[in-house]
């Protein structure tokens, strides 16, 4: 079976990647030990307190302002790319570790786009097309590696 059709079959199980979210929630309700969505929006507060920094001091390190740090900690706003890089550097944690909910939502959006592209790549039988399909397969494998659908 061609790579293209394999991945399109995989994506076809979830016509829209958003369906995964619904399935995850269903699974959570059925058995929360099976898979859980991140309950904590971000861990900036935890890391900041771990290192005894005030919001003002962290804002100075990041090059932002205190109100923005507070909003980020409360999950009411998202960090900019610069702030994200700064947080990752300051606390020596990856961005998905610091912002699990943000990372999940970005991943869902990327996978939704990938689902759309997979239909296009499926028709491309060239070397480049197969290479692109391989990337989408890898992405799908990475996302579903910790999920066991029954």
């Amino acid at each position, binding site marked *: 079976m061609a790579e293209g059709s394999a991945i399109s079959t995989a994506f076809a199980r979830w016509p829209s990647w958003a369906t995964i979210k619904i399935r995850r929630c269903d699974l959570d309700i059925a058995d*929360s*030990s099976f898979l*859980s969505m*991140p*309950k*904590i929006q971000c*861990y900036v*507060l*935890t890391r900041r*307190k*771990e290192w*005894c920094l005030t919001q003002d001091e962290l804002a100075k390190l990041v090059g932002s302002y205190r109100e923005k740090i507070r909003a980020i900690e409360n999950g009411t706003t998202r960090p900019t790319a610069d702030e994200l890089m700064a947080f990752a550097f300051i606390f020596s944690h990856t961005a998905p570790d610091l912002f699990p909910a943000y990372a999940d939502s970005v991943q869902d959006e990327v996978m939704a786009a990938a689902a759309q592209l997979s239909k296009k790549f499926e028709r491309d039988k060239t070397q480049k097309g197969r290479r692109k399909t391989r990337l989408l397969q890898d992405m799908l494998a990475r996302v579903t590696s910790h999920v066991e659908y029954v």
Partner: protein
Amino acid sequence: MTGTHPGELVLAIRPFTKGLAYVFAEGPLSPIDWGAKEIIGAKWNARCFAAARALLDHLKPDVLVLAKEEETARGSSGRAQRLLNLMANHAHGQSIEVCRYSRTDVRTCFADVGAVTRHEIAEAIASQIPAFAHRLPPPRRNWDNESPRLYLFDAAALVMAHYCARPSPDID
């Protein structure tokens, strides 16, 4: 079901004469938020309850962990007991599970590491959770007052007692 769910959010609140200490965690060694709110003066109970309610509303834990009444009422009070009952009642109203652990439960949890006194338990916690290490107060001398920082470790010990009593299926 007796085990904790992975990612179960636990909030332990430990009231003391000058306020509230709290630890919010998603695992025995994974605190997310912690601190102490200083509350002194008139209407201590009402203000402590308001602070606890604000914590519950903001942090939205799955489980509220409190000390068992008779253990908290050392020295003063029905006042602390009433506060704990108010907090437990509010949590029930918010569909938050409430668990209470006595000092015996906490000591049982830390028996394996040889920690018996509050300070030894605090030292054991500080050695396991680096974020708390700098908050460890010096051992209390007979003529010293209790350090408010020790109550933070009391709250952390309650969290650990909770995970000890109801281990997660993932934790051996």
